[in-house]
């Protein structure tokens, strides 16, 4: 049994090596390798069983309990000798000094806004600038500031809704251009792309933690763990009729942190 299994293991292992060298399909190489391992397992297991060795051998356990006498006699600990208080204070000082190189590895706070600037055209990931009627009503696309496609934390969802359905406060009225409205695509909860536009109900949905944002009321969170609205990008039209940003976001983009200032 054991010898037969070992023979299979040897042949399968050599076979796997040859098959891999000949660039045979992965499945064949993998199955041969697995077969060789299983055959080796059977060989070792069968050999062990054939030993008929006893499984009730015994040996004594180590004696346990406190050592006597203790390695550090009480009077050594009590005395202010080689390891007196000053030594411990010195160790603490070394540790504190060592903190500074560690602290210097990171900066804080770290967020400096996005790549959006006033007058920056909204372009698709392919770099095409967009006019207000390029999206169909009920359409959506991802946009970036022109020349900064793929810039971190700068992805924006541009939505086109029926004219006049948005229910924004007066200060945001002119942030919308002919039904085009733009929100940061980076979730304020944990930073996933809020990619899903449910156009019948005017909602944005994050596939990571299921937060739902109400587009008509400025992408306020209405369900799920997010606590803050997706920042809105104020839109304008340039002289050539292309959509542009009025400036960077008024609020910080992405997940919150202790040093976030509003």
């Amino acid at each position, binding site marked *: 049994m054991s010898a037969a299994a070992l023979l299979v293991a040897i042949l399968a292992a050599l076979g796997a090596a040859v*098959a*891999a060298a000949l*660039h045979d399909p*992965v*499945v064949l*190489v*993998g*199955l041969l*390798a*697995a*077969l060789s391992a299983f055959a*080796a*397992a*059977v060989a*070792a*297991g069968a*050999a*062990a069983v054939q*030993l008929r*060795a006893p*499984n009730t*051998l*015994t*040996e004594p*356990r*180590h004696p346990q309990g406190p050592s006597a006498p203790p390695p550090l006699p009480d009077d050594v600990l009590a005395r202010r000798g080689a390891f007196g208080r000053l030594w411990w204070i010195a160790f603490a000082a070394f540790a504190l000094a060592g903190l500074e190189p560690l602290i210097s*590895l*990171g*900066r*804080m*706070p*770290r*967020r400096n806004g996005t790549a959006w600037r006033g007058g920056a055209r909204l372009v698709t*990931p392919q770099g095409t600038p967009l006019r207000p009627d390029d999206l169909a009503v009920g359409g959506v696309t991802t946009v970036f500031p022109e020349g900064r496609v793929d810039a971190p*934390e700068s*992805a924006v969802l541009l939505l086109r809704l029926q004219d006049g359905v948005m229910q924004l406060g007066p200060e945001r009225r002119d942030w919308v251009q002919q039904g085009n409205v733009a929100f940061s*695509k*980076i979730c304020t*909860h*944990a*930073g*996933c*792309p809020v*990619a899903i536009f449910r156009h019948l109900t005017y909602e944005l949905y994050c*596939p*990571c*933690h*299921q*937060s739902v944002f109400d587009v008509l009321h400025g992408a306020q*969170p209405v369900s799920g*763990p*997010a*606590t803050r609205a997706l920042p809105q990008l104020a839109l304008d039209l340039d002289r050539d009729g292309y959509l542009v940003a009025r400036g960077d976001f008024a609020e910080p983009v*992405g*997940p*919150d*942190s*202790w*040093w*976030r200032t509003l």
Partner: protein
Amino acid sequence: MILRRVDRFFDERLGSDAWVRYVFAKLYPDHWSFYLGEFALYCFVMLVATGVWLTFVFQPSHAGAFASVIAFTRATPVGYLMRQVHHWSAVAFIAAIVVHLGRVFFTAAFRKPREITWVLGVLLLVTASVTGFTGYSLPDDTLSGTGLRIADAVLLSIPFIGGWAADLLNGGGYPGPLLIPHLYVIHVYFLPVTIGALLALHLGLVFYQKHTQFEPDPAHVVVGRRFWPDYTLRTLAVFFATAGVVTLLGALIEINPVENYGPYHDWLVTNPAAPDWYAAWLDGALRLGPAVEWRIFGHPVPAVFWPGMVLPTLAFLLVVAWPWIDKTITKRDEVGDVLVPPTAAPWRVGVGAALVTAGVVLTLAASDDQQAVGAHVRVTALVTLYRILFPFGSIAVGLIAALLAAELRASRAGRGAERERVVELVRNAEGGFDAREPHST
């Protein structure tokens, strides 16, 4: 013959024969549940073996990581299998650690003098999980990138130092230029070396303190099989079986098809978005976590801080401190070389079952969107369900498990008692029965 000469070489210089003789004669346990830890050990062996190979073909930079993974995966069947077996071993490694931890918990093998071994084991679970997550993130694909982004948000949420920690890891804003290099050195150096050290201490303690056992008699001896050749062959069989299983999975089932996911951009996402299983409980917690952002001294404490940072910290502290919590509850601190059958301590079975249920509920919550589609219900309905099940379902399952264990213990005790009271029934003059002691014939 060569082995003899090698043995002589070392013995003449180190007097190593005495030690070899001791190791060969050492006894090892003969119970199936003691192999669970070995599965984990041999998964780690497979991880190191395949991982070393992978370091030669992987390019640890944001620009090159994804392309290099696709390139070596496509180039040869060896490359493909190495990555497949590496990832499957990681998935199985952590599963084996969890099962092993469960065995130790339910049989109370963590009692004095093995508390240190327990703590090292829990640290191994944590280190293995973090190593798994960093490795899963290295290919820089859309799915793992989304996971990294979430991890970044959790790091960022820590009061006061969060921004600093995230900046340190990223080497700048997210996704920083140094993120992949940092993850790489953490994944291939810091964490594996840590695992190796923890493993050496863990196994060293098992070796030195000798194993626990179910056999109570005779007192102060350890029962088992000799290491050489009996147990050597057995553990070899376990190694090859483990290697065979992860290789078989690697050969047959595609894992983490990053080619399918495509390279990472912070504005692209896959759907469903779910992490590897061992991180799913944290993702589930993030999904169930309340939508609250408190302010402390005017500073925001983001919602992800509680489920993403506080919950795992509390869970870790609870598990790591368990030997001492157990001592407090049982009011016993004597040496526990003899294992407790799970049914003998129903309350511990209850606590364990409740903790497992809590973990399972959070894990299930991490795929609630997929379940909602399958069951044609609202995602929010499932969120509510899991929010209820997380505390109350866990308690209920814990109570039921404790009651079942108590019932089992009682019925076993009853059976034993009845066996002791065997009587013979004899018909009496009135037509009824009298019981009397059986007489031997």
